[in-house]
């Protein structure tokens, strides 16, 4: 995968505190001192790192591939069908699932910030938040995808979904050829995060 973000790296001196870092620390200090927030932030961070991620989305996709009724429910009401598997919460309240077909390839972007379906995909990768991805996904999606290593055939329409408003999109990739004998559990391992954003084809 070609990343498009700038790497800010760790070139700072380890003791040097960036202004924004000091500001966030100040906000935390004030809110905690006033008793407005008192939870264990590290637990929240660990939760995001450990429990919220694209494996959830992969389970949704694999279930849709193996259960036609679930697939229909998923396309009709993404939020409800995803909740059936136990996934929901912030940034997942208005889920719309868009299905790739032989004729259509779907691509998800948030042009204005970084809207992204946390419950099914976790936190967005850095490139998803970059100005380059956000603008080029709309302006020249085919070229952008090619640069990211994904060639979409010319006779396949690319539909770009901008999740700036209420809605969060999840791409339902096509089930790859040659997976007819795989169990649902095995299929979960086939699904990638990038395929559910639409920057990869399985």
């Amino acid at each position: 995968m070609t990343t498009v973000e700038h790497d800010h790296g760790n070139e700072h001196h380890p003791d040097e505190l960036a202004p924004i870092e000091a500001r966030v620390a100040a906000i935390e200090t004030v809110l905690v001192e006033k008793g407005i927030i008192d939870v264990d932030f590290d637990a929240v961070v660990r939760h995001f790192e450990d429990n919220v991620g694209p494996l959830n989305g992969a389970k949704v996709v694999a279930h849709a591939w193996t259960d036609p009724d679930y697939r229909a429910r998923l396309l009709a009401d993404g939020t409800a069908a995803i909740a059936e598997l136990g996934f929901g919460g912030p940034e997942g309240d208005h889920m719309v699932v868009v299905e790739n077909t032989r004729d259509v390839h779907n691509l998800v972007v948030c042009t204005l910030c970084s809207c992204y379906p946390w419950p099914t995909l976790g936190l967005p990768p850095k490139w998803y938040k970059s100005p380059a991805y956000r603008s080029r996904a709309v302006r020249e999606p085919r070229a952008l995808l090619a640069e990211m290593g994904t060639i979409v055939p010319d006779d396949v329409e690319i539909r770009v979904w901008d999740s700036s408003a209420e809605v969060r999109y999840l791409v339902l990739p096509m089930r790859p050829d040659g997976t007819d004998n795989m169990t649902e559990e095995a299929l979960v391992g086939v699904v990638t995060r990038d395929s559910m954003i639409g920057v990869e084809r399985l």
Partner: protein
Amino acid sequence: MTTELPHHIALMDDAPLPRDNGELVFDAPWEARALAIAVTLVEKLGLPWDAFRLRLMDAIADDPDRPYYESWGAALESLVIELELATCAGLDAAAPTERPPL
């Protein structure tokens, strides 16, 4: 399940370990804390997530080329100030000058 987590977040707690996301999403620990503070604050106050998200959109629009989590921090500060949970002077006074030892 960690009971002190906001209930919305705890709802997502039943999946096993998708730790292998392929890449880190944070460049530095303070970015993760900025995320956690915003999520926790919105939950604690019972606000819709849009209360923060719309500020984040504005902060990114204000300065599209700055690093993402700097915009996130700016959005968090604007929310805290507007809700009168802190003042600019109060934040200035509370800002550390060096990183505490881990």
